[in-house]
């Protein structure tokens, strides 16, 4: 893909250099594209996005955003470099109010821009607008995910990484959250989505990347997944297949 906004090239990463979990993974995402990263448990999906976000040491390879190498950028400077990350769990500051969480996301904006940008997030996630003063720890699971996404969006990222945003949410809330992701991607943000909920991910993704044992196994359109009997059996649960 020549017009890739995000380009991950042969990335090796893990908590200990001697035991990499991500073994030379490559991945691309274009502006406005939603890429779902799928794979069985232990495939290295979460480690991959954490490494891209600067939270897990990278031993080789690189991450490029809009042509700029951001592999060695510290985690706290990633958002300013254009890459936002929403962790799977503990992704809001539970003791801070919803509004304070958003203000933290907006800290890099000029003071005059903060209120209008936060108003846009409240407009996008109407549920949050009614809960501004509530401690974020008292929100429902879906509202927390929306707050975490909203906080990351206030950093005006070009690329948004989400680690299993549907975990623990009801199908209705997942559908609502993924509809929001569609709106966000339509604004030009590239979204890389790690998911265990394969059916939901296939419904929202423009393209999928399948990882197995920390390596690329398949890359292509979601519809093609169903046409590959081995992958379909494994990921869509048609039969109890062995990992492909």
């Amino acid at each position, binding site marked *: 893909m020549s017009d890739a906004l995000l380009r991950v090239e042969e990335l090796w990463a893990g908590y200990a250099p001697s035991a990499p979990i991500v073994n030379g993974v490559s991945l691309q995402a274009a502006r406005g594209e939603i890429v779902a990263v799928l794979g069985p448990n232990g495939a290295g999906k979460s480690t991959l996005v954490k490494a891209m*976000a*600067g*939270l897990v040491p990278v031993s080789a390879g690189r991450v490029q955003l809009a042509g700029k190498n951001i592999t060695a950028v*510290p*985690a*706290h*400077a*990633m*958002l*300013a470099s254009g890459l936002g*990350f*929403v*962790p799977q769990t*503990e*992704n*809001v*500051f*539970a*003791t*801070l109010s919803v509004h*304070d969480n958003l*203000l*933290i*996301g907006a*800290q*890099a904006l000029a003071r005059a821009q903060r209120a209008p940008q936060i108003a846009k997030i409240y407009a996008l996630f109407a549920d949050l607008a009614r809960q501004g003063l509530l401690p974020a720890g008292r929100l429902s699971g879906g509202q927390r995910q929306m707050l975490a996404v909203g*906080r*990351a969006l206030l*950093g005006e990222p070009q690329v948004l990484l989400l680690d299993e945003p549907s975990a623990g949410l009801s199908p209705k809330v997942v559908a609502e959250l993924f509809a929001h992701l569609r709106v966000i991607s339509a604004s030009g943000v590239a979204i890389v989505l790690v998911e265990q909920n394969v059916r939901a991910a296939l419904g929202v993704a423009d393209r999928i990347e399948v990882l197995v044992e920390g390596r690329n196994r398949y890359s292509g359109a979601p519809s093609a997944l169903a046409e590959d009997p081995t992958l379909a059996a494994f990921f869509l649960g048609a039969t109890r297949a062995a990992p492909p």
Partner: protein
Amino acid sequence: MNAQVLADGLISGAIIALGAVGVTLTYSILRFANFAHGEFVSWGAYACVCLAGALGVWWTPGMDGIGPLSIGWNVVFAGLIAMLLTGLLAIGLDLLLFRPLRKRGAALTAVIASFGASLALRGLIEVLFSSEPRYLSQDLQLAIPLGAGIKLTPDQIALLGVTGVLLVAVQLLLTRTGIGRAMRAVGENPALARVAGIDVERVFRLTWFIGGALACACGILLGLIVQIRPAMGSELLLPLFAAAILGGIGSVPGAALGALIIGLAEAATVQWLGAEWRSAVAFLVLIGVLLLRPMGLFGRPA
């Protein structure tokens, strides 16, 4: 308990509060119990007495008492500079000692290292200044009757005012400013704070600075009503930790209330049981809180 005991407890509590706020911020944001915090109290007091002396030589009118107070403007300016220097001392200690240990994830080693740092800093004071007591002022002040049987000196009244202003300022910083919000965020979840774009190391440095500066203020105010001695900070360490834990780790109002309770308990003990029992009070309160309500008055369950 008569009203004068309450007033004495309030004075003690105000001094403890300034140190306890530093302890609670360091404990909650850096997640480590810094046993060298008491030495910041001593170093702050010594820095102030030295700077006040130097300013007095250069600017003699500055040594005249401010209104009814026993100290002059030289002590006020020296105190502000000493707070800056003690804050920088705390940052320096972090950069040299605690940050490398933090990077290695050696949390327990950092606590032990803080014991070592405490001994080294106290020893250095004795080498530089000897163990002879120093005084910010040797003027004899008469206590003013305030009604209800309470008498306080002007210095003690000023101490309460300064403590109140500093505590309110820290609470406003934490709750009304962007950097305060970032400090609370780092205290709750440093990994998420990094992802959210917060420079966690910068927040750590600011926490050290505020803790050091408040410890210095604590030392100066303590030095205003008693002697300045090398062991003054280490002797205060147990009440500081007792107040921080009683109030609930991370809570500035909690630390202030905890300090007030410790101060009042100490004053009551001195009156009813004798001064030799004073130092046992903080220890008993600490044990009681840890057994009955480990999260303290305003803390959150782990």
